[in-house]
């Protein structure tokens, strides 16, 4: 349900172009990593800050293990947002092997692995999306959530300066590896103008 931010047509269009973008992302990742990447169909919804906090808390509860998330800002073409990658059910040694890192007990090495993975997955997906929208995004450096503070402390609903955000959710998993993560593209209401313009242009 997308309530007021997008019309039905706009939402369908966005879902369609993110789907195409994900196809391209899967292809790029396959070339880099030499594996088959299973991507879910993107799910478009509208969330409030409290929904995001609740989703994170739910993730936190489900698993005894701490969850890891990496955020990365993107901006371009009158559109801006943050890509948040959440590692759900991921074996970090397996991930390290896939990215050809030395498996390591060292926390800094693991953090670097998570940030590099997020950068690669976010980059692949957002690059596809930017191409579909005929624009080009600039990326900020990836930031590991929970490195300096608890994930739910960080994402406090009252510190978010928006009421509604468009969220595109994509699930990644990789064949024959215990790697599973959710990518959320969060675009706050005030940063949507460029996207809506592009979607309308495509719909015409």
């Amino acid at each position, binding site marked *: 349900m997308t309530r007021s931010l997008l019309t039905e047509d706009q939402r369908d269009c966005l879902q369609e172009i993110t789907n195409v973008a994900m196809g391209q992302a899967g292809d790029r990742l396959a070339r880099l990593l030499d594996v088959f990447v299973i991507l879910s169909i993107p799910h478009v919804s509208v969330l409030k800050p409290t929904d995001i906090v609740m989703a994170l808390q739910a993730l936190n509860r489900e698993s005894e293990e701490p969850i890891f998330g990496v955020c990365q800002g993107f901006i371009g073409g009158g559109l801006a947002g943050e890509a948040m990658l959440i590692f759900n059910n991921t074996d970090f040694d397996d991930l390290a092997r896939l990215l050809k890192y030395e498996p390591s007990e060292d926390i800094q090495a693991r953090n670097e692995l998570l940030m590099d993975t997020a*950068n690669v997955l976010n980059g692949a997906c957002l690059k596809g999306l930017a191409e579909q929208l005929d624009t080009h995004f600039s990326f900020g450096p990836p930031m590991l959530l929970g490195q300096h503070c608890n994930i739910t402390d960080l994402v406090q609903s009252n510190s978010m300066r928006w009421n509604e955000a468009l969220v595109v959710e994509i699930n990644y998993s990789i064949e024959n590896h215990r790697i599973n993560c959710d990518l959320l593209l969060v675009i706050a209401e005030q940063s949507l103008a460029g996207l809506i313009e592009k979607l309308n242009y495509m719909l015409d």
Partner: protein
Amino acid sequence: MTMKEDLSAFFKDVHWLMDILQNIDAGLVVMNRKYQIELWNNFMQNHSGRVPEDALGKTIFEIFPELPRSWFERKAESVFVLHNATFTTWEQRPYLFRFPHYRPITGTAPHMYQNSTIIPLVDTRGNVEHICLIVYDVTDTAVNKIAQQQAHKQLQELSRIDHLTGLYNRGFWESRLIQEFKRFDRYQLNSTLVMFDIDHFKKVNDTYGHTVGDDVIREVSRALRSQLRDLDIAGRYGGEEFGVILTGTTAEGAAVFAERLRNTIENLVVHSEGQEVKFTISLGINQLDESTPDHRAWIEKADQALYQSKEGGRNRYTIF
């Protein structure tokens, strides 16, 4: 506009751009597929002490042998293949290139902390044959962040430690006890609690005064600390009462520990305020088992054993 004016405007633009690239306060290095350097700006020249004539055409690994090759290639490979920028932060790797810190007065670190970004340079045919490495000096940010983290850690330590004894204070020790209880609940690993206090401590205080009393407590803590193993968790539970969690230890093992500590304290002479004070301790031991419903009951059992030691004449241990 004539062709000539066009060209001169173009050259002026290029000249400006080159000036900006050369003088921007960030390192810029353009490399080809073989990691040979094709652009080397002033920042790189000044901080590395290598002039462009020296650097151009050489690989980045020849110029900086300390740069881990496989690590850097892996980062750069994703830029070539995915046409996607990649990042390094000082938190993961303090620096790519070891540039000594150069400011004699306001410099705060032995070397420059660096963040870096590697961006793809797409040619006219849409291929990426070159990448650009951008190096940022983030020393001030890094130093501030590290100082903040250290202050935070110190505060955390302070809030855990009992000032007089240097052992954990009651609050933190109890939270560790709860953790240990939960660990037993899940993994059934042996864990034994020893509670002890100083016999007739009130008399020590009344006879010699509080300063001597404090010294007695301090000396007991010192004796205790010297007999702890890495994983043992000792805290000051009350005025003259102490608690020690011996992880991975049975009641029998704890009895050996208790007897050794009892013996040490019995032979200890505390010199304080010109006085020589001798005293003893009584101990109670309880190994955690399924019959203990929570951590409070665990303390209670060890306390009961301690009480029996007192009843039995003090200067001894009892296993619950």
